[in-house]
């Protein structure tokens, strides 16, 4: 083990190992379960996969009650994904880091967050799945892409007289489903964490 400069410790060895466990769990969800969900062509599979990953990360936060835990879990998961390369990695890496950062931001005000904080964190992070494709496509293609989106929306509205109502409905569903999935992930993570703490105590 190479000797290096000492830094102030925020996470203990136990914290880091537990962070690793939940990062591995998120990584397992992304790699193994991801392939199954995509093959099964389940609707909203991207959002479902994200919810399961957030479930792992937020459960980890419940067991490592320090600010920054969720972000660390997200960073370790993103680096794990980089280690187990498979095709283009930029978009999922960005998604994992941003989702964990959003969840961390939602939990930041509380040293020991309760159920509602976990639910908020899950919902906020999950809602990123709605925005993420636009961010990555905009990053790749540049600002000109948004002009194209504007034209697409306008053309669709003109071509379909009832198009605006259907569009509003579809947008509503596209936002509501991830929000509900994220809220559920946060609530389940809170209770899972308590159950695991009780198990570890015995």
């Amino acid at each position, binding site marked *: 083990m190479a000797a290096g400069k000492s830094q102030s*410790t*925020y*996470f203990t060895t136990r914290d880091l190992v537990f962070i690793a466990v939940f990062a591995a769990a998120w990584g397992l969800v992304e790699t193994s379960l991801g392939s199954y969900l995509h093959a099964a062509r389940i609707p909203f599979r991207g959002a479902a996969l994200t919810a399961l990953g957030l479930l792992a990360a937020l459960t980890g936060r419940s067991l490592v009650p320090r600010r920054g835990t969720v972000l660390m879990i997200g960073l370790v998961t993103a680096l794990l994904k980089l280690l187990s390369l498979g095709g*283009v990695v930029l978009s999922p890496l960005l998604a994992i880091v941003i989702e964990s950062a959003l969840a961390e931001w939602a939990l930041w005000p509380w040293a020991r967050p309760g159920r509602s904080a976990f639910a908020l964190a899950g919902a906020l992070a999950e809602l990123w799945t709605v925005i993420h494709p636009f961010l990555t496509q905009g990053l*790749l293609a*540049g600002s000109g892409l948004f002009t*194209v989106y504007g034209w697409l929306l306008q053309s669709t509205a003109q071509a379909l007289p009832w198009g605006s109502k259907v569009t509003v409905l579809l947008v509503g569903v596209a936002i509501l489903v991830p929000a509900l999935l994220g809220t559920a992930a946060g609530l389940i993570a809170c209770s899972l964490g308590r159950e695991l703490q009780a198990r570890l105590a015995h």
Partner: protein
Amino acid sequence: MRRPSAIWRPSLYGWLGLLAWAITAPGLFGDARAYAPLITVALVSWLLGEGGWRSLGSWRTWLFLGGLIGVTALAEGIRPGLGAGLRMAARALAILLAADALALHVPALDLAALLEAVGLPGLGFALGVAFNLLPALRQTALDSWQALRLRGGPGKQPLQSLRRWAVTVLARALARGQEIVDAAESRAFTPSRRQVQPPRVRRGDLLLLLGLAAWTVVLLIM
């Protein structure tokens, strides 16, 4: 073709710089110069690495690029739209190839070491533990799922069964984690001491970054 020797090959900083350049440079150039970032990234990654352009093998990449060109042509008229679409596609492809090169040539541990150096101590250790735990975690999940199926599957209360399965898998992983903690602490491991040093800046990094800066100036003047 002989590849440059190790000292002249870029490391983390060079490839990160190339990715950052691929993201920011296209915004500086219009008209035919908009294709320069794509040509530059392709040449650099081919000359300094072995290409490794995974994105080109993905149908999603081609679907995205084709859709970009097609929809832009419809939105802005065939001739101007095609030009704008091709420029956007060239920008996107440059970024994807630069990201591929970074993923191929930069070990994740180097990235972890860099993040540790900027204020995230213990990240490298956590990454190493997670990487080593992954196969055991996968096996535990499979074994527990098999045991559940042998007992009749999720049954009439699938959510409760799934929850019990998840708790079993995570509890076993955490128990294994506690063994790792004990083993690390018995070897006087402490997260306050940096375990991995971030890579040093190589000549190849400086050459690449200075080259990109000079090339940007040339393109701006043209």
